[in-house]
């Protein structure tokens, strides 16, 4: 083979290899989704959504409390994480150009890499220890703290995208700085911020590790912030590592529900981004 032919062969081989990389990367995804749907779908039923879990062997049983628990925990997390996260983001965008701002920004970037289980332990120390009990509040705090760094950085980027001319026009009209930021800038960035929040919520809904020793688990319905709470993710985990076949089945179905929840949040965020963009272009 001439040298040129050999070089073309190498080119073709590399093209093939990189294409193969795409296929290899996506095979686990396809397999996983297929399995969750095929194994989990059979367990879906109205009672699965509304019932409490039952002991092994007993029929029926569902994830009602776990599903509600996840929503409850995520709600608490938003109470903790949204003001701090979005607020820090606005700070970084409006006043973050100095040394202090750079320091805060670097802190946010580094914090976003902290493993969720470490944050769980922190929440344990902050909430469970003084309260002397596991609680939904502790879980909410853990999830909320996890949301803060990412929300801060995304919010900063979004607020910075708002054109300076908008801000200047508002100030030129005599509207004070704080009203300008609130009414004009944030309202413009609102769509993006909501998207960022939705994505943060989706990630929080999928967390398990920090909940293991903060919200713990609960076999019953719970609405009190100072009591342990069930969650979809912890329930899936417990079912999966148990030795019982029918609980394994429930794990697949619960996983399907979790994927639908997380998927819906992500798709809504994506949909908002697309329609939000067209709104701004007008």
């Amino acid at each position: 083979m001439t040298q040129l032919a050999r070089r073309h062969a190498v080119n073709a081989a590399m093209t093939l290899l990189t294409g193969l990389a795409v296929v290899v990367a996506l095979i686990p995804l396809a397999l996983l989704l297929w399995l969750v749907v095929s194994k989990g779908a059979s367990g879906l039923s109205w009672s699965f959504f509304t019932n409490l879990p039952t002991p092994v062997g007993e029929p029926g049983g569902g994830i009602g409390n776990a599903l509600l628990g996840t929503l409850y925990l995520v709600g608490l997390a938003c109470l903790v994480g949204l003001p701090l996260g979005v607020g820090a983001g606005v700070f970084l965008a409006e006043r973050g150009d100095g040394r202090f701002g750079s320091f805060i920004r670097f802190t946010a970037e580094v914090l976003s890499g902290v493993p969720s289980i470490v944050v769980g332990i922190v929440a344990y120390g902050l909430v469970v220890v003084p309260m002397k009990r596991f609680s939904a509040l502790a879980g909410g705090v853990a999830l909320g703290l996890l949301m803060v760094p990412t929300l801060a950085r995304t919010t900063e980027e979004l607020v910075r995208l708002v054109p300076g001319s908008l801000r200047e026009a508002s100030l030129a009209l005599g509207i004070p700085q704080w009203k300008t930021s609130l009414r004009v800038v944030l309202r413009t960035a609102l769509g993006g911020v909501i998207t960022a929040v939705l994505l943060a919520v989706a990630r929080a809904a999928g967390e398990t590790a920090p909940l293991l020793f903060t919200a713990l688990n609960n076999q019953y319905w719970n609405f009190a912030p100072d009591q342990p709470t069930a969650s979809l993710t912890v329930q899936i985990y417990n079912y999966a590592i148990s030795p019982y076949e029918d609980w394994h089945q429930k794990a697949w179905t619960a996983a399907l529900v979790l994927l639908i929840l997380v998927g819906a949040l992500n798709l809504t965020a994506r949909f908002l981004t697309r329609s939000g963009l067209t709104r701004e272009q007008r």
Partner: protein
Amino acid sequence: MEGPPPLLLPDSDNATAARPGDALVATPHRPRNLGDRLWAAGLVSLGGGLAVVAGVIVLALGRLTTPLVGRVHLLEFLKGQDWDPVAASFGALPFIYGTLVTSLLAIVVALPISVGLAIFMVEIAPKGLRPIVSFLIETLAAIPSVVYGLWGLFVLVPWLRQTVEPALARVLGFLPLFQGPPIGLGFLAAGLILAVMILPTIASVTIEVLKTVPISLREAALVLGATRWEAIRLAVLPHARAGIMGATLLGLGRALGETMAVTMVIGNTPEIHASLFATGYTLPSVIANEFAEATSGEHMAALAGLALVLFGLSVLLNAAARLLVKAVKAATGSFG
């Protein structure tokens, strides 16, 4: 009589009447009234709150480890191989070992696939294919860890046990890496699952990095008589090298902290073995398994100490990755 009436007053709680010319004098950044001052103060405290969060994390972890502080020497803790809470013996080495082995295996598997994927996406794929692949990568990233663990436990592990590990043992069994009974659970399973999970991280950053390589560089190679792959090798990859390294560090950071999927497939035995078929334990897994039922204050303190080690590792990696990305951005600016 004074001149024309003053300009529109921005706020009624401003005691001093605005005079013509005031608007020229006041700059947007000097808070002129209570509202502005409160807003500025609020923002600064929220921003500072972030730093407070970081401090709180360190302090809370530190406080939880205090029962151990007098008792166990830091070096003993890190180098000790024996983890026996009942006997109050706390050695962190098996977990550090497990974390490092699984993370490194994950990088070894994920890096070539991610870079290959990124090259395909940016350089080779037809335009219509790109949004589809990128959507699929984002989907991979959005799947919760426990669902990966579920799939790992019931699909990957049996497959490893029945097919892959025996095959590896037959072909490469002379290496200590592939010796011992194939049970499916263990370092190999954990490393592979981690590889799938960090793939989107490395791939998406690499795609961004490859996109910043200017077309003129590719063309410079092509007009010398290079094939498409040679142009990528000559012009694109060297330019992207530092960025890819940053992507790898980010992926490594994610792998270090991954808990649930690993816990469900690694076997959870606090032992050090050379073989990838062996079961082991990682820092996040032992914390996840033992923290809620810690038998003593010291046990809990030791686990908190492990969390502190994990925190330190992730901060270092993340900081290194960000600094690397910043350096790449600064360098790119100079040939822009």
